C-alpha cells in the first residue's frame, strides 16, 4: 500500500506499526529540537479543497517536524475556485515535484481518484473526503484510546491493541467520515463498537456494519462503555428534518451534565470522552463534559501531530520506486 486512503483496508499490523511509531514521535515533540531529518528535501503538498485549519495545521506541523518542505494549496482564491479540475491541479503538483499529497476534499472518493487515476504518482494521504473517511483522525483517536486502555489494564502501550474495549460513537453517523474510519479501525484493533444516533442519521445499509446500533444513549452508557466518542452535529440538519430541533437532539443524544454525572456512578470503569472537534458546546456536548478530566479533546489534538508524523514518515521516507511499508 502506497497511500493512506481508508482505514477499511489498513491491516492490523500496519495500524499498530503506525501507533507504535507515533509513540516515538510524541517523544520528539517533547524535545528541545522538535525536528527529525527524515524527510529532508521532500515536498509535501497540503491540498485543501475544504477549509479545515485544524487538520491542515496538524499535517503542516507533522511534515515540518520531519523536515519536509510544505506547500499549502488551498482551493479558495486559487485556480481551483475558478473551475480548474482535480486532474489539472494534480498534474500541476506533479510538475512542481510534490513527493506526497495530503488531500482534504468535499467529495467522497476524491483521494482515491487522485491515487488511482494516474494523474500523479506521489503517495496520497486522505485528510478527510466528503462523508467517506478521515483515516488519520481515526488513528489519532485510536492512539488516544490505546494510551488510556493500556494504562487501565496496566500493560505497555507499544505493540498493544484495543481488545475488549467498549466504545460508543454518538451522533450524525450518516454524514460522518470520522465515524466510518473509526469503526473500521476500532474493529481491526479488537474494540467493540456501538453506534448511537437518531435513526435518520444512520445510513441505510449500516445494519450490516460490524457494530451494535442503538437509538438510546442512556441505555448504551448504562451497559458499560469505556470510551464515548461524540461527533459534531450540524444545526442545519434540523432543516432537512433529520431531527425536529437542536434542543430535542441535545436532550436525547447530547452528552450533557446529567450523563456526565451518571458515569461517576459506574464503579470500575474509567470512561473517557472523545470529540474530534470543533465542538458545538451545548449541542452535542456540554461544557462540563468537554472540560472534565474524562475529556481527551486536547490529547487528541497533540496526538494528531505524532500520528501524522508516523504516517508521513512511513509513506514518504523510502524509495518511491520500492513498495512502501504501509
Amino acid at each position, binding site marked *: 500500500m502506497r497511500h493512506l486512503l481508508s482505514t*477499511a483496508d489498513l491491516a492490523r499490523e500496519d495500524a499498530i506499526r503506525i501507533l507504535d511509531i507515533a509513540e516515538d514521535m510524541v517523544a520528539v515533540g517533547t524535545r528541545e529540537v522538535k525536528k527529525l531529518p527524515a524527510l529532508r528535501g521532500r515536498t509535501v503538498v497540503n491540498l485543501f479543497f475544504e477549509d479545515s485549519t485544524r487538520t491542515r495545521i496538524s499535517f503542516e506541523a507533522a511534515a515540518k517536524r520531519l523536515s519536509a518542505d510544505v506547500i499549502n494549496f488551498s482551493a479558495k482564491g486559487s485556480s481551483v475556485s475558478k473551475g480548474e*479540475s*482535480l*486532474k489539472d491541479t494534480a498534474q500541476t503538483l506533479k510538475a512542481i515535484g510534490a513527493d506526497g499529497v495530503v488531500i482534504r*476534499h*468535499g*467529495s*467522497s*472518493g*476524491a483521494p*482515491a*481518484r487522485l491515487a*488511482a*487515476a494516474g494523474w500523479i504518482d506521489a503517495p496520497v494521504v486522505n485528510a478527510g*473526503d*466528503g*462523508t*467517506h*473517511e478521515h483515516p488519520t483522525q481515526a488513528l489519532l483517536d485510536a492512539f488516544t484510546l490505546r494510551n488510556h486502555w493500556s494504562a487501565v489494564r496496566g500493560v505497555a502501550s507499544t505493540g498493544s491493541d484495543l481488545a475488549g474495549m467498549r466504545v460508543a460513537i454518538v451522533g450524525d453517523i450518516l454524514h460522518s*467520515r470520522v465515524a*466510518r474510519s473509526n469503526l473500521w479501525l476500532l474493529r481491526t484493533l479488537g474494540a467493540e463498537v456501538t453506534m448511537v444516533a437518531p435513526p435518520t442519521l444512520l*445510513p*441505510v*445499509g*449500516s445494519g*450490516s*456494519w460490524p457494530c451494535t446500533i442503538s437509538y438510546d444513549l442512556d441505555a448504551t452508557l448504562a451497559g458499560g462503555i469505556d470510551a464515548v466518542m461524540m461527533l459534531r452535529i450540524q444545526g442545519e440538519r434540523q432543516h432537512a428534518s433529520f431531527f425536529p430541533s437542536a434542543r430535542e437532539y441535545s436532550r436525547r443524544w447530547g452528552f450533557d451534565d446529567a450523563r456526565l454525572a451518571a458515569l461517576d456512578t459506574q464503579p470500575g470503569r474509567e470512561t473517557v470522552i472523545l470529540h474530534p472537534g470543533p465542538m458545538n458546546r451545548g449541542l452535542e456536548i456540554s461544557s462540563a463534559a468537554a472540560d472534565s478530566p474524562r475529556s481527551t479533546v486536547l490529547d487528541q489534538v497533540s496526538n494528531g501531530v505524532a500520528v501524522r508524523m508516523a504516517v508521513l514518515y512511513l509513506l514518504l521516507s523510502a524509495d518511491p520506486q520500492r513498495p512502501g511499508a504501509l
Partner: protein
Amino acid sequence: MSTTTYLIRGAALAGGAATDLLLDGGTIVATGTAASTHAAAATAEVIDATGLIALPGMVDLHTHLREPGREDAETVETGTQAAARGGFTAVHAMANSTPVADTAGVVEQVHNLGQRSGWVDVRPVGAVTVGLAGTQLSELGAMADSRARVRVFSDDGMCVWDPVLMRRALEYVKAFDGVIAQHAQEPRLTEGAQMNEGEVSAVLGLAGWPAVAEESIIARDVLLAQHVGSRLHVCHVSTAGSVEIIRWAKSLGIDVTAEATPHHLLLTDELVRSYDPVYKVNPPLRREADVLALRAGLADGTIDVIGTDHAPHPSEAKDCEWAQAAMGMTGLETALSVVQHTMVDTGLIGWDDVARITSATPAVIGRLEDQGRPLAAGEPANLILVDPSARWTVRPEQMATKGRNSPFAGMELPGSVRATFFRGHPTVLDGALNTPLAYTGAAS
C-alpha cells in the same frame, strides 16, 4: 436502398436451422433453396454466413446521440456508426439535446441528420414537457405530425414527476398512438444522489439513490395508465421491486412495457468501490439481487426490451471526482454481447427471444413498421449476422462512438456482429464499418 444484391449463405435464422437469404432492392426477396435459384442470385455478391446467426436488425428505444448541442460528446454520424457496429438498424434519439427536442423543428433536424448519415434509421424521441422542465406539455401533436413522425415521448434524464402532468401526457398521446417513456425517479428522494442506496453507499459515504424512488413512480404510473387507458413504457428498469410492480401491472392487463439496459443486467454497485466515475449512471448500478431479478424479468416477459441508454460523454466529464462526474455509459457497441453473456449463455433465453427483445418488440413500441420484422421473403432487409462463438475484449478507444466511457472496458465478452444490413445495404461487413446507405432525400 442498396443497389447490390447479396446472397447470404448458411445463416442460422434466429439461432434455428441454417438457410440462405437473398437481399435485393432493400428487401429479402427469397430464403432457403429459393434464394440460390432466384434469378437475381446469379449476379449476387455471396456472403458466407456459416456458423453465424441471422437476427433482425436491432432497434434501440433509448439512445443519446447528443446532437444538436453536444457534438463534442457524440454526433448523429458517430452515434449511428456505433449503432451499426453494434448491430442496430434503428435507434430512438433521446430528447435531452441542446436545444431540447421539444418542437417539430428540432425533431425534424435530428431526423434529417439521421437520414443523411445513412447508417441506421434515426427516430427522434420528443420531449414530454417544454425544456424537460416538467411544468408544461410540449407540442406533442406537432412532433407526431412532423416529418419525423414522433411516436415515443420522454423527458428521459428527468422524471415527469407531476402526477397531473403525467396523467395528461398519457391521455394526450392516445390521439396519435404515442407512448410516454418514463424515466422513473422521484426527485425529492434522489436529491444529490450518487449511487444505489445500500450497504455499499453506507461504506463509501456517497448520497444514496434508493430503489423506492424508482418503484414509487412506476407504481403510480401504471395505476395512472390503467385509469386513463393509456400506453406506458418504463425506461431502464433497475430494481427487483420495479420488476415485481410491472409483473403485477401486466397481470392486471395494464398496457405497460418495460426496458432494461445491458449494464443493469451485468454490473453491480460493488464496482463503485473504486470511485471510478465510469460506473456512474442514472439509474445507478444496483445489487446482485436486482441484476438477477432483471434477468428473470426479461426471461419471463415482464421486461419487454433491451434499451441501451447509450450515453457518451467527453473524457473530461469522467476524468474527475465521482460527485463531479457526469452520469451515463456508452452501450451501443456492447449491447448484444452483454445480452448474449447474461441471457443466452446463461440459458435464460434463446436467440429467438433475443430477436424479440432487441428488435421486434421495440419496433412495435416505437411503431416502426419496417423494423423488427421476421426474416422472411418480402420483408425489409434489416438484419444482422452474429458470430456467437467469437470472444473479444472491450477496447473503448477502438469504438465508433466518441464516448470512451464504457463500463465494460477490458472485459472479455462473447459474440461479435459480423455484418449489419440496413435496407439491404451492408453498413457493417467483416465486423467493421463499411459504407452508409446512400442518401436519396426521399425515404422516411
